[in-house]
């Protein structure tokens, strides 16, 4: 069965795409233009009542929230492709720990930068320089903690690549690219080495080739 993924050119759906490539699961992107407000169409809201992407459709089975989708497919296909969850309950605990760190400590700030630096004019919202400045400062403090962690551990959850690292790929790609703040990564030795490692994985390169960024 081919898994359909809505909004493949956008960042959050790319978490799902790179996971599916790592797990060797076939998928099909379903275009949805957020810039035209298609995520607020009544038909889409029937699938995802909060009006956000991604949504996956696997036959009749519909699931939303990228990190929930990651967990489901990583577990369902545990014995196929890359193991993204760790080998023990304890390793899984570390994966969950750093996936939550990404969701609550990392993502909010890089998301604000994405919204205001990349998309504000396209969405007709005012670009707020205070939000940009604050988000950059907060993200910097988070990356300092990552630097310390990654000086002791090759990947976030331990010595193995996992969902926790994977979840950072799409928005960090924006950070070093169109947001224009590559220095935040390159100025931190261990974060830089980690970023080079995870972003040069063939799975991520494939996703970038298939669905170049919308801007």
């Amino acid at each position: 069965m081919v898994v359909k993924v809505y909004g493949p050119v956008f960042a959050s759906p790319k978490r799902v795409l790179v996971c599916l490539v790592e797990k060797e699961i076939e998928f099909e992107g379903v275009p949805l233009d957020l810039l035209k407000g298609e995520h607020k169409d009544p038909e889409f809201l029937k699938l995802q009542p909060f009006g956000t992407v991604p949504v996956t459709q696997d036959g009749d089975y519909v699931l939303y929230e990228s990190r929930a989708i990651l967990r489901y497919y990583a577990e369902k296909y545990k014995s196929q492709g890359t193991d993204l969850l760790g080998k023990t309950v304890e390793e899984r605990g570390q994966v969950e720990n750093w996936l939550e760190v990404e969701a609550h400590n990392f993502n909010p700030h890089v998301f604000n930068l994405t919204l205001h630096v990349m998309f504000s004019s396209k969405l007709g919202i005012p670009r707020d320089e205070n939000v940009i400045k604050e988000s950059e400062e907060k993200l910097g403090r988070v990356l300092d903690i990552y630097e310390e962690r990654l000086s002791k551990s090759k990947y976030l959850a331990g010595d193995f690549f996992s969902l926790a690292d994977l979840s950072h790929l799409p928005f960090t790609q924006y950070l070093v690219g169109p947001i224009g703040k590559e220095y935040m990564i390159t100025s931190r030795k261990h974060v830089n080495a980690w970023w080079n490692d995870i972003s040069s994985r063939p799975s991520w390169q494939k996703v970038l080739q298939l669905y170049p960024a919308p801007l």
Partner: protein
Amino acid sequence: MATPVKVHGPPLSTAVSRVLACLIEKDVPFQLIPVNMAKGEHKSPDFLKIQPFGQVPAFQDEATSLFESRAICRYICEKYPEKGNKGLYGTNPLAKASIDQWVEAEGQSFNPPSSVLVFQLAFAPRMKLKQDQSLISQNEAKLEKVLDVYDKRLGESRFLAGDDFSLADLSHLPNAHYLVNAAERGELFTSKKNVERWWGEISSRDSWKKVVDMQKQST
């Protein structure tokens, strides 16, 4: 006899109380280790070793050290599947995926506006900090829209992820409790028929009542 797990943090903290509720539902013995945040203990070098972001809770289960309340809850459910409420994180992959979807919805859509309101309305006055009225009205509006989605869902399903109480519902207890009981925002929940029914059910669970008792005893 296994060593009780350790939870570091004050029970009044929403994230700490999320973990306590899960431990009580799962009947997993624990030791609560106080952290005096007013004295800045969560920023001390010793605490930063177990939680480098200087946030509560931190958690230890023998050699395993974890943080982030929702990660700790998932770990507890996976490590102790046969204890207490066995269905808390689902007993099959589809149930678990639905629970994860709604725990994510809580974390991404419910938590941000409700956390701002809890801080502004329940904590700021007690800490003698000035309230930001525009932040309050912006986040009330956001939370209303989220609860509209919840009301529709809870018209189709007894609990958020399905027919049974799960981690997804539990995850909402801490912030909702303060909104209803310490911020005079009960109407957010009582003005929507299905949300009201759901809130009544989940907040009257024995496990949550025990957490509220722990919170009261700590003041």
